[in-house]
């Protein structure tokens, strides 16, 4: 007996409809749903990681003694200040030289980063290309110091003092030349680091740096240094005819 067309349709209507439904469901519902789940999963994973980082940071923050940190920071501000602060530096270096019995012949400061608006605009392109320079170079004040004095031992004392001075002072080069009658001149390129506050990116979730035992030893070491730059220097308004009066 041969089946007619309507009976054939009746026979296969259910599986055909099911196949069509499934075929339509896959691209229209299933795939987008999988994509959404994938995105959500990534979002949850990232959120979880951030939450863990925040919790770890919070735990660490709770252990920090704010008073102790503030006191240490005040001490370290004398060692590595946040700004260039030239005047106390000049006074400090003169005091160091005077202590060693050396005369300051000249002091030539190398200009650092520009600050005025006109200078900033003209230097902005140059600054971009200089961004690759190391932090050490950017956060270091450099100056040439010319000293003179009798004998070589005085320079040794000066060098010894400068290595144990706060703010921190380092020597890049020393040129020594003998003059008449046992007099020597010492030309030194001296660098003084400073450290500005940094803030970038997701600062809330960024982990706290560790205050390692090595850094604590550094702290104990430098706090014994002698401060030659803690001399108050009177400030005058811009345009004063004689700023030293």
């Amino acid at each position, binding site marked *: 007996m041969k089946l007619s067309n309507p009976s054939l349709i009746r026979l296969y209507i259910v599986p055909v409809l099911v196949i069509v439904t499934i075929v339509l469901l896959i691209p229209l519902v299933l795939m987008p749903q999988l994509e959404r789940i994938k995105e959500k999963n990534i979002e949850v994973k990232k*959120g979880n990681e951030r939450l863990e980082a*925040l919790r770890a940071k919070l735990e660490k923050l709770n252990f920090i003694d704010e008073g102790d940190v503030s006191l240490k920071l005040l001490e370290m501000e004398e060692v590595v200040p946040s700004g260039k602060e030239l005047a106390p530096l000049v006074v400090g270096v003169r005091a160091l030289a005077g202590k060693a019995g050396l005369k300051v012949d000249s002091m030539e400061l190398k200009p650092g980063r520009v600050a005025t608006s006109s200078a900033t605009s003209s230097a902005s392109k140059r600054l971009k290309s200089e961004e690759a320079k190391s932090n050490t170079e950017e956060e270091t004040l450099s100056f040439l110091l010319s000293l003179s004095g009798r004998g070589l031992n005085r320079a040794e004392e000066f060098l010894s003092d400068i290595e144990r001075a706060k703010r921190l002072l380092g020597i890049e080069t020393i040129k020594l030349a003998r003059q008449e009658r046992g007099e020597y001149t010492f030309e030194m390129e001296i660098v003084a680091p400073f450290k500005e506050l940094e803030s970038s990116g997701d600062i809330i979730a960024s982990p706290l740096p560790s205050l390692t035992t090595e850094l604590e030893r550094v702290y104990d070491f430098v706090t014994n240094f002698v401060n030659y730059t803690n001399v108050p220097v009177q400030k005058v308004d811009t345009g004063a005819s004689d700023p030293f009066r």
Partner: protein
Amino acid sequence: MAEDINLIPKEVTQKEETKGSINRTVNMAAIISLLVVAALLLALFGYQFFLSASSKRIENQTKEAEEQILAQSSKEISYRALVGKLEETSKFLSSQLNYSEAYGKLLKIFKDSGVVITDTEFKNDGNFSVSGDAKSSSNFGKLVDGLTDEQFKEDFDMVTLVSITKIEGEPYKFTVEFKVLKKGLFEATPSTQINK
């Protein structure tokens, strides 16, 4: 009462039954497939709902943690600044030559050898150049011996005579170069020494 008589041939009946059975099986399979797909979709929706709930929960907890961290922002700023300054200090101290120690040893060697220093150039990379006057070759010999002495082997290296000249009636004029090995003002360790 007469029984119904099935006049359809047995073979045809069997064929019809088989066809009906296949039809039912196919329909059943299709419905099961549909149910499986529906279950899968439900599971996916359920999982998405779970993820959304998790995301919301994490978001709330994150917000709470952020607020607690922000409440301690001044402490964090101070702490970061302190560590930053200490790291800068550590880096700076380890990059500096111990000039006073090297200079003191150098002065002793020159004093012992009776040689007079006239010009020097010391660089923080450890390269030292010293020019001086030696009254005699013996003085100059003592200087070389001093610089290459065993007791200073951890201080100076690569001692090189750049030039030496002698004009009658005048002392020997010489220039020597050498490398200062010890680097770091804060407890110099072997790792902070300049590579030879």
